[in-house]
Every structure is written in structure tokens, then in C-alpha cells.
């Protein structure tokens, strides 16, 4: 089975655990890596320090990014990604408890691909995560030939 690396940036251990459990159950094709604050996320993506070993810390296909993070906010990390010469087109899905309009507008203005609000509804979370797994597979290998024949 082809696996896809996703970087989950989240400071709350409980939230990391919920997301990790959901991925194990609903998207086993995803290798989930974690960063616990904004600076660590940037270090991971840049391959700095302990993250220099790309066998242990593979470059992710996409990032799941919380907004309210210590050391550097999720919006700052997003801005950094979008300005980075090689990472700028990496998909970034905000996964946050913030439903404030300001955060939403700012995230999209900075180039977020999606904005997802965290849920404690575990079956719903698993469904979303399953979708992220499929999305990662499409990002890794976009369809070149239609699955079915052309329309009549």
C-alpha cells in the first residue's frame, strides 16, 4: 500500500491523539507526523536539526495546521510556507477550533486550501480524515486518464 506523509501541527496532546487515532482507523495509507508548535513545524519542513533525517522525517505531501500555536502561530507558519520557494504550493488544511471570521478570512487570504473546524464527534472526524487520506492520494498522483470512458 502506497503511504503518504501528512504533517499535523497541533500543540494540544488530546487533539493530536484524536486525530492520530482517526487516521489509524480511517486512513491507514497516511503516515502522520507531528509538530507541537509553529517553530517546530518550520524546522520539520526545512529539515533542520533532528528533522534533517528525511528517512525518519519524510517531507509531507500536505500539512494539517492549527491556528493557535505557541512560538509561532499557524497563520505565521502558513505565511512562511507560501513564501518558501519550493514549499509554496504544498496543500495546507487548517484544522482549528477557531471559528472566528477574522481567522477564516486571514487563513484564506494567506493561501490556505481548506478550513476545517475541529470536532469532538469521532465518527465525523474519521469521515473527514478518510477524505484527507483520499485527497493526499490524489495530490500524490493526480488522475491522468479518466476512470470511465469519455461521455457520449
Amino acid at each position, binding site marked *: 500500500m502506497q503511504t503518504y506523509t501528512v504533517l499535523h501541527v497541533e500543540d494540544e496532546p488530546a487533539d493530536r491523539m484524536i486525530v492520530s487515532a482517526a487516521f489509524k482507523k480511517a486512513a491507514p495509507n497516511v503516515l502522520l507526523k507531528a509538530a507541537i508548535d509553529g517553530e517546530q513545524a518550520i524546522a520539520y519542513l526545512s529539515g533542520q536539526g533532528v528533522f534533517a533525517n528525511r528517512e525518519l522525517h519524510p517531507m509531507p505531501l500536505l500539512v494539517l495546521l492549527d491556528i493557535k500555536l505557541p512560538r509561532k502561530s499557524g497563520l505565521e507558519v502558513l505565511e512562511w510556507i507560501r513564501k518558501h520557494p519550493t514549499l509554496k504550493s504544498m496543500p495546507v488544511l487548517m484544522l482549528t477550533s477557531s471559528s472566528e471570521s477574522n481567522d477564516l478570512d486571514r487563513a484564506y487570504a494567506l493561501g490556505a486550501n481548506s478550513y476545517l473546524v475541529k470536532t469532538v464527534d469521532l465518527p465525523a472526524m474519521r469521515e473527514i480524515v478518510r477524505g484527507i487520506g483520499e485527497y493526499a492520494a490524489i495530490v500524490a498522483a493526480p488522475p491522468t486518464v479518466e*476512470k470511465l470512458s469519455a461521455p457520449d
Partner: protein
Amino acid sequence: MTPQETFARAGSRAHLVQFYSEDVVLARNVALYIKEGVERGERIVVVSTAAHTKLFREQLRASGMATEPLERDRRLQFFDAQETMDSFLVDGEPDWIRFEQKIGSVIRDAKAAPGSSGVRAYGEMVDLLWKQGRLGAATRLEGFWNRLRRTEPLTLFCSYTVDVLAPGTTSVELQELISTHSQLLPARSNGELESAVNRAMIEILGAATVEALLPLIRANVVARVVLPEAERTVLWLRRNLPPVADKVLIRARSYYEDECARSNHAGEK
């Protein structure tokens, strides 16, 4: 929810928007919107192009509503979109003070009219700006309407000539247009767009993949706006999978045109 149900539920906090590419669809919805307001005893203010004004009057008459007595009593007022907008442009840009003086006074007069239970407005000045490629000016004008509504609550309905399937329309533009409103009406009321987009997605991505993606698409918060399923999916595709979006939307277009032709044909029978 059908447009009729949406118009029936729309209160003074509603700021509805319609993306359309067929005048006939717009005329049908605007006529429903006006009729609903008239039945509620609201005063109706319509700011539209001359061609659309003619079309709306015809559509209202065809649906059994005589417009002449309503217009005579000023329960229904039509204003020319270009002339009205020209009255509050300064150096080509919408000016809040002039807008408030012009539109605010029309709304206040309509509200104060004897027997008025509220005001319902429809406008397409923003579409004139959009068609000139002036998205910033259009969203600023939408902001003026929203600012006015804070002191003069009214139900508002806007329309834009937007084809959501057109390759040149970007997700950023669509999102900017949508985000100043409370609800986007579906392009068509019989689910033609939804059916066309789903069919194209399934053919290009596979049914299992689409089924897995849908909860992710539905969970995505686009703005504080109620969106129809098809438009939500198109926005998500454009923003998250641009190369796939192009393929899906090109194919969806051919299905959509077929579906619309079938619906129009069935409607004529």
C-alpha cells in the same frame, strides 16, 4: 432548499446572492422574491438594468401579478442600475456618504411609507462593476449595503453574471463575491449543477474516491455563508485540486448544458 423557500424564510438579516448565466433563471427568481415581499406587505426596491427591469415586469405579469398598481402606489419601485450608481460614484469609486444619501433615503422613505411592513431590495449595480472587472469596487459596494443594513434592516438580494464552471473564474474571485453575503442561491433550482458536477467527479476520480472526499468537502468552511452543495464542491475543487478541477469542470459543463436543456424542454411541455 428551493429559491421560493429561501425567499419565504428570508428576514431582514438575509443578504442573498445569485450567480447566473441565463436571464430566464434570474427573472424567475427575482419575480418570486418580489412576489413574496409584496405578499408580506413589504416595500420593494429594485435597482436593475433597463433590460432586466423589462424582463422582471414581464415575469411578474406572467405569474399573475399586475405591476402597474404596485408601482403607482410605490409599493414596488424600479431604479436604473447605472444611473443610480453614477449618482454615488466619486472619481469612479463608490462613495459611502453619497451612497448613504441616495440609497439610504430611498430605503428610509420605503420603510416610513404607510402600511409598510419592511423593505426588500434587489440590486445589480455590483454586477455592473463585476462585469467591468472591478471586483474590489463591487465588494466595497456590497460592504456599503451591509453597513446601511446595520441601521436600516432590510432583506437584500444581489445577482452576478457568473458562470461557476467557466475556466477563467478563480476560487479567490468566487470567494470574495460570496463572502459579503449570507446565502448563495443555487444556479438552478432542480439540482442540474449538482448532478452534473457529481457525475463528472465520479467519472474522473471514481465513485469510492468521491464518496470519501464528500465529508471533507462538506466540512470545509468557505465563509459564513450558506452554500448549495454544487457550488461548495466547485469552490473546493478549484482551491484544493486545481488540475483535477479543470478536467472535472470541463466535463461537468457538457452535462450541465444537457441537464438544463432537458429541464427547459420539460418546462415548456
